[in-house]
């Protein structure tokens, strides 16, 4: 299939004796929204860190558009079209919300020292950054110092920065958590819009309603292993998945 975007092939990541991700394989096609779910500590965020290059896999390979990217650093993955948010938000605290997004707009400039000499705070970059902030609903906060925002808005800033990279693959790590219902609805619409532009989305979400509602397919991790994979309705009725969640007392989310 040539609309394959990303494939994990038997990927493992060990931390000392802990197998945070253990022999996981799955793939993602262009324009697909894939939900990555599983109980706390299942290895979801570690998967994101592997795909975005924050960690190198202990074993296995990660293939993006036919290129083996295992071991690539994050800045190369960003240049190859991977944009991500962080579950534990990582704003550039002393910079304003707008400047945070402008950092991401510079992606193409950071490839060489010469190209990085041009001015960054231009009318065009301010305008573009503001448009993205408005898209995620925090345009009115553009001038605020990013370190002082409440968590929900910091998550939206995370999303804005990832979008500013104009990625082919967008990784969203619990971006919806801590948002009010109408804010989450706005972002859901946004994610669907992003997908309509042909961008693939990989989504970690604890709220089952959101995860099931948005995803075309779901991958379930438990204790680092791939437990199940399939359409939302298949996953919902999969006894192994129900058990994994019941065991962790997370069934309340599923209701």
């Amino acid at each position, binding site marked *: 299939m040539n609309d394959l975007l990303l494939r994990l092939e038997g990927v493992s990541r060990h931390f000392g004796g802990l197998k945070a991700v253990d022999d996981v394989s799955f793939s993602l096609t262009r324009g697909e929204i894939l939900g990555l779910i599983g109980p706390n500590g299942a290895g979801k965020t570690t998967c994101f860190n592997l795909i*975005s*290059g*924050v960690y190198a896999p202990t074993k296995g390979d990660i293939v993006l558009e036919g290129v083996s990217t295992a071991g690539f*650093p*994050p*800045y190369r*993955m*960003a*240049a190859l079209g991977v*944009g*991500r948010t*962080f579950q534990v938000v*990582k*704003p*550039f*605290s*002393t*910079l*304003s919300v707008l*400047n945070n997004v*402008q*950092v*991401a707009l*510079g*992606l*193409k*400039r*950071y*490839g060489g*020292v010469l*190209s*990085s*000499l*041009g*001015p*960054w*705070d231009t009318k065009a970059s301010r305008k573009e950054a503001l448009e993205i902030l408005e898209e995620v609903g925090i345009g009115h906060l553009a*001038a605020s*110092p990013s370190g002082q925002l409440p968590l929900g808005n910091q998550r939206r800033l995370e999303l804005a*920065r990832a979008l500013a*990279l104009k990625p082919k693959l967008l990784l969203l790590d619990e971006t919806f958590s801590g948002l009010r219902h109408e804010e989450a609805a706005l972002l859901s619409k946004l994610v669907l819009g992003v997908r309509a532009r042909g961008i693939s989305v990989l989504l970690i979400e604890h709220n089952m309603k959101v995860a099931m509602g948005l995803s075309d397919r779901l991958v379930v991790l438990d204790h680092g292993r791939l437990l199940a994979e399939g359409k939302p309705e298949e996953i919902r009725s999969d006894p192994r998945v129900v058990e994994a969640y019941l065991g962790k007392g997370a069934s309340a989310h599923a209701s």
Partner: protein
Amino acid sequence: MNDYSITILTFIAIQAIVACGLNVIVGYAGQISLGHAAFFGIGAYASALLTTKGGLTFWTALPLVILLTGAIGLVLGMPSLRLREDFLAVTTIGINFIVESVFLYVPFFGGALGLGGIPSITLLGTRLRGPNFLYLCLVFLAAVLFISRRFTRSWGGLACFALREEETAASSMGVSPIRFKLLAFVLGTAMAGLGGALYAHLMRFISATDFGFTLSVSMMSMVVLGGIGTLWGPVLGALILGVLPEVFRPLIDYRMLLNAAILLLMIRFQPAGLLGEGSLLRRLFRRPGRDSAHE
């Protein structure tokens, strides 16, 4: 102004140039460096050697001196800047001691006797002395400030701010940490090299002890006092630390103690420095509507 005041001001201008360089590394890119005096020394020795043994003039030597100091910064920064912050602090102190020892013990660099006979600077056929030398230093200081400002307004500068705040996030936005830390390091050390060249031709005689670790601490005090990461902070810091001991003469003997005390007090009570964000001075003289986060 008498000769003495002019000399003091000239020293201050040179130190301000070097402190601006340190500010690029520490303030803009957030990389700790406690060995900045080493690069000041490398610039001074390079210019001294090129103009005495090499037969060049100050002006023909200067581009080479700046390039050489920046290149040594590149070579030393490449392994060091990959280290964690605390190791980087220790490594830069180490660099300072090693460079000082090389100047002190390698005969080529004059050994314990230092290097003398450094020619003074001539411009348009006249020898620059007194106020004219001061003006030259001020022109170079202005150039350094201009470059600093340009840097903060370039994508590379923004990349450094991002790295300083959150390295993993910056990297995930395409910023190669090592590339942009090195860029700041090379720029900062090159500025130190310029300051060193001016110093050598002002003094006409230099020796290794002029470039010791205590000077690195003074430089850091200037940057922290004035306002780390601000444009004018290093200049203000150099001015205050240069003038204080002149106004309160007894302080001269306790210069080192004063510098260290100021460093610690500022970190404890005004970490952003006199000109930093949210500082007392800034709150007193707030200019409304100006975004100073990246000045």
